[in-house]
């Protein structure tokens, strides 16, 4: 077992108190911080994401793993900045207007972050104009993620996409959507770039979208 294997194992088991010292140890041993991120922390979350998509891992296991990864990333941050490492991409996420559900949205945020994205979370009950304002103020945003958990709030996803179009920003960003009642057919209807069934798949798709 290498130290990267140890880091990966600790993240997968959600042992945040183990991860930070292991990451520090890896740095002390002279490992490249980018390698620790890309070969230790990120693959661990990919494993959890795949297990979640397969129904073999559960929400709390994803949460503790994501927190463990965050503990490791916190140790790495100053060294990554020194190395000039850039995030894989930038995303903004929120649950649409009128919808207060947040657990699925939070899982997607964590999983996308775990792939190396910088994610801004606008929270729940986010109006289309809030997404637009954010995009106007953050021109380097790559992906907009929005979700709805109710059939009655689902149309707000379409309203959000239309608002982004009307603001002349649609060509600049990719739009990913999700939520329990959302389907691929609905995504096609409202003109989203991607729909995924769960948080693990969302993270994989986000990477594909920014890598083209």
């Amino acid at each position, binding site marked *: 077992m290498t130290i990267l294997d140890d880091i990966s194992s600790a993240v997968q088991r959600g042992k945040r108190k183990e991860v930070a010292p292991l990451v520090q140890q890896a740095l002390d041993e002279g490992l490249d911080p980018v390698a620790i991120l890309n070969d230790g922390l990120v693959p661990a979350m990919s494993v959890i994401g795949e297990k979640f998509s397969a129904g073999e891992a559960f*929400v*709390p*296991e994803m949460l503790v793993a994501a927190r463990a990864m965050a503990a490791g990333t916190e140790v790495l941050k100053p060294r990554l900045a020194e190395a000039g490492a850039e995030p894989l991409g930038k995303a903004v996420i929120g649950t649409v207007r*009128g919808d207060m559900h947040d657990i*699925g949205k*939070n899982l997607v945020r964590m999983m996308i972050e775990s792939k190396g994205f910088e994610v801004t979370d606008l929270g729940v009950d986010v109006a289309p104009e809030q997404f637009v304002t954010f995009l106007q103020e953050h021109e380097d945003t790559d992906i907009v993620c929005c979700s709805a958990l109710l*059939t*009655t709030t*689902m149309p707000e996803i379409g309203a959000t996409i239309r608002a982004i179009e009307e603001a002349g920003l649609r060509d600049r960003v990719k739009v990913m959507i999700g939520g*329990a009642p959302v389907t691929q057919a609905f995504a096609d209807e409202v003109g989203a770039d991607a729909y995924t069934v769960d948080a693990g798949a969302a993270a994989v798709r986000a990477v594909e979208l920014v890598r083209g």
Partner: protein
Amino acid sequence: MEMTPRENMMAILEGRQPEYYGDFQWAVKLMMDPVWKSDSMPKDGLEHKDSWGTVCVNPVGGAGKHPVITPENAVVTDIEKWREQLVIPSLDDKDWSDAAAKAAAVDRSQYFVEYFCAQGLFERSHFLMGMEEAFCAYLEEPEAMYEMLTAIADYKKRLIKEAAFHLKPDVIFFQDDWGSKQNLFLPPDVWREMIKPLQTEIAQVIHECGMIYVHHADCICEPIVEDMAEIGIDIWQGVIPQNDILSIQERLGGRMALIGGIDGPAIDDVDTTDAEIMAEVHRCVDTYCPAGRFFPGAPAHLLRDPNEHLVEADLRVYGAQWAREHPIR
């Protein structure tokens, strides 16, 4: 002689020939007790606290109240300090007279009196802490979490006994959503360790009080259905078709009755046609009624009234037709 709604649903529950198949809830009169009333809040989009101190919002035009828990307003911010942070609501000051009068007025030859017991152990745990913190606590601090769940269960048992004394309900509708549309929230072994023993105690109290135990969970429960039957749940209400219902019926062999089967969100769009709604109702009846002890219905209310009304209207007609054409021998 025609069966009363109550007799018809008892026939399905007991595996006898009914006059029609339909939602068990058609035969109940739901009692809005003082605890339920104190936890209700206006549809004003503003923050209100329920009796446990959980901040909730009931959005204008929304589907119902929803907890809005932040690190600043969470009741329990550290599970190891739950005893200091949580005040269990008192049951001593409740006025049951209104609910008791309504229960006494129900013609029980026609209908069941149903007591609605909202927010079970699991839901209350995340209402107190927020979902993320609670879910992590289940894995990281299981002993402290179990202690808090035990305190919640003790409250629930006291409350059920109070309701039994005042209302003499025939049925309890005990709400605890244990999962999502994708899976259980907790890993099954964690659910078995943390929820099942306490839920078994609650089920014992429910049965000691002479009630039929209807458990509402409109989510995936497939991994734990045998456990649910073992606990003593008489009817699982909220069986969404994302569960493999046919497999569940085979595994259970009739040990627990089921209510649900209709894919509500799939037929709850403004553009959904009447034909699509009726096709889904018929699919549900045709597919799941043959196994017996099955009450077809929407696991949760559809949010668009015309769609909801058509589901019920068509189910009443098709459920009766199906019963006539498929007699239990």
